């Protein structure tokens, strides 16, 4: 490798010698061969040639080194950790150093940008996840949720809302609420709330609308979302279906009035007969005796009613302690029959019984089974017209270890459409409403006692105009 410096030195010397030859030729004449003028010309030409060649070589060298440097620079493009550029050429050293500093600075700033971008990507992912999380929370809410923007367009809604209000959820952006919902009253409720701009305020409204083909009542909670001062924010509307609650409230009201009505009946008899006794209206001792019987029976009836009502609410709230002991079904049935006989006699209803021997026992709470049997007997008397018949029988299946109590009457019967529901709470058979008044709780109590508490079975069979047979099936000990 010819170093450029050496070339330059050679060139400089050649120029110097040429210069001396031009200025002081006589100096060369002292050298051998120098006095020959031809030699002088050849020497001069050679020197010029040497000089030019040296110049060219020098220039070429610069070019080559520069190209090498450029190649190195190109190779560093886009590299995050560039290796320092190198050069042998002293003329290019400062350029190389400067370029190296530039490359380093760029690399650092590139690395910094990449780092920042990664951070932003992570933040974006976190925000997305949070958003998805919030959306899935909203989707999982069973109440209908609607979120609108300041221009009354739907921003977000969950499945429940789509189902309740009869529209389709679409992933495409914002849809004007007015066109989407058929319930215009709801749309105007939301619009009014938005216009009111009550920050942090909440409005709760009861709203009736047609949903899923039925009239339903919703509790609508409206809140304003914070927004910028000029536009205001959107609205969040949560619709809670309270139709069932409203129905239950209505049933409870009906129940209370039924109950008071029911309680009033035996009470009216008691009061009237007591007054008659006080006023000495009873003709003779026999009649007095009849009066006392009526008062006693009606008082018992009143007591049973009250017990029924209390039992239902206590059993419901889980307060009742269950006390299961080996119990003779026969004994319970006979006791219940004794209680119900006066009422049956009052309607000239004959009571027949065919009861299995007392040895058959079931593991049960005596009071509860007693109540269940009594309720069925009481119903049989209520819904059987004068002169009818009630037959009570017990049947034992030793193989299956079951005992079944059947109470059959020749009463009004139950229409087929009501049969599946008779054991439901508050359910009353409309067709028989005039025949007898009831709380609608008696049979549900029987079902609860037999099935839930004693894991037995209740069943019913009935023909309108002919009568019904109610049954209780329990396991033998």
């Amino acid at each position, binding site marked *: 490798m010819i170093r450029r410096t050496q070339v330059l030195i050679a060139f400089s010397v050649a120029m110097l010698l040429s210069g001396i030859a031009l200025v002081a030729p006589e100096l060369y004449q002292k050298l051998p061969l120098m006095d020959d003028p031809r030699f002088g010309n050849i020497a001069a030409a050679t020197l010029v040639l040497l000089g030019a060649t040296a110049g060219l070589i020098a220039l070429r060298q610069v070019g080559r080194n520069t190209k090498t440097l450029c190649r190195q620079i190109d190779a560093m493009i886009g590299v995050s950790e560039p290796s320092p550029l190198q050069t042998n050429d002293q003329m290019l050293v400062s350029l190389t150093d400067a370029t190296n500093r530039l490359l380093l600075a760029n690399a650092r700033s590139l690395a910094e940008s990449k780092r920042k971008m990664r951070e932003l990507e992570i933040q974006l992912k976190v925000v997305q996840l949070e958003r998805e999380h919030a959306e899935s929370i909203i989707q999982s809410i069973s109440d209908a949720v609607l979120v609108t923007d300041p221009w009354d367009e739907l921003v977000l809604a969950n499945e429940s809302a789509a189902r309740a209000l009869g529209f389709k959820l679409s992933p495409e952006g914002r849809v004007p609420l007015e066109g989407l919902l058929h319930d215009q009253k709801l749309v105007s409720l939301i619009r009014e709330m938005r216009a009111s701009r009550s920050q942090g305020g909440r409005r709760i409204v009861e709203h009736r609308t047609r949903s899923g083909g039925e009239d339903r009542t919703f509790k609508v909670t409206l809140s304003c979302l914070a927004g910028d001062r000029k536009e205001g924010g959107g609205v969040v509307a949560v619709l809670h279906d309270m139709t069932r609650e409203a129905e239950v409230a209505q049933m409870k009201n009906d129940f209370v009035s039924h109950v008071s009505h029911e309680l*009033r*009946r035996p009470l009216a008899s008691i*009061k009237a007969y007591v007054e008659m006794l006080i006023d000495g209206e009873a003709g003779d001792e026999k009649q007095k005796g009849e009066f006392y019987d009526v008062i006693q029976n009606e008082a018992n009836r009143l007591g049973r009613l009250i017990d029924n009502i209390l039992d239902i609410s206590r059993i419901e709230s889980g307060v009742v302690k269950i006390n299961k002991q080996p119990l003779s079904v026969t004994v319970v049935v006979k006791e219940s029959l004794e209680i119900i006989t006066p009422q049956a006699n009052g309607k000239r209803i004959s009571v027949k019984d065919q009861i299995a021997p007392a040895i058959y026992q079931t593991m049960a709470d005596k009071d509860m089974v007693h109540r269940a049997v009594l309720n069925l007997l009481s119903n049989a008397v209520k819904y059987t017209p004068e002169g009818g018949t009630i037959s009570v029988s017990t049947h034992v299946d030793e193989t299956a270890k079951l005992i079944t109590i059947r109470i059959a009457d020749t009463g009004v019967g139950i229409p087929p459409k009501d049969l599946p529901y008779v054991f439901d709470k508050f359910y009353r058979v409309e067709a028989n409403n005039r025949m007898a*008044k009831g709380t609608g709780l008696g049979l549900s109590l029987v079902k609860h006692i037999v099935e839930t508490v004693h894991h037995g079975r209740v069943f019913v069979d009935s023909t309108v105009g002919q009568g019904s047979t109610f049954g209780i099936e329990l396991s033998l000990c």
Partner: protein
Amino acid sequence: MDQKTILVADDETHILNVVSLKLRNAGFRVLCARDGQEALELAQQEQPDLLITDHNMPQLSGLELCQKLHADSRFDKMPAIMLSARGFQLEECDTAASGIVMMISKPFSPRQLLAAVDQVLAA
């Protein structure tokens, strides 16, 4: 003075018994009916001077019974006393076309019922 005839209609046996006993002891002739239909037939047969009826009865309600009888020219002068559950309200238009002059709520006092009967028949 003629013995007055009172028709009593109630689906509850005990109430029927106590009212009829009280009124008989007071010297009235008492006819008993267990439901609205039976009461209607008895009224048409016997033409009572006064009707005492419960409201909630099978077949025909007390109100319907009164309205039917009142529509019949034979009975439009016959007054009626209605026994009803407390809190039971009748619309004015209903009472107008029924001949009901008084409402007594259950539980009631036989003494007060007798006093009411005397009052109504005296008018």
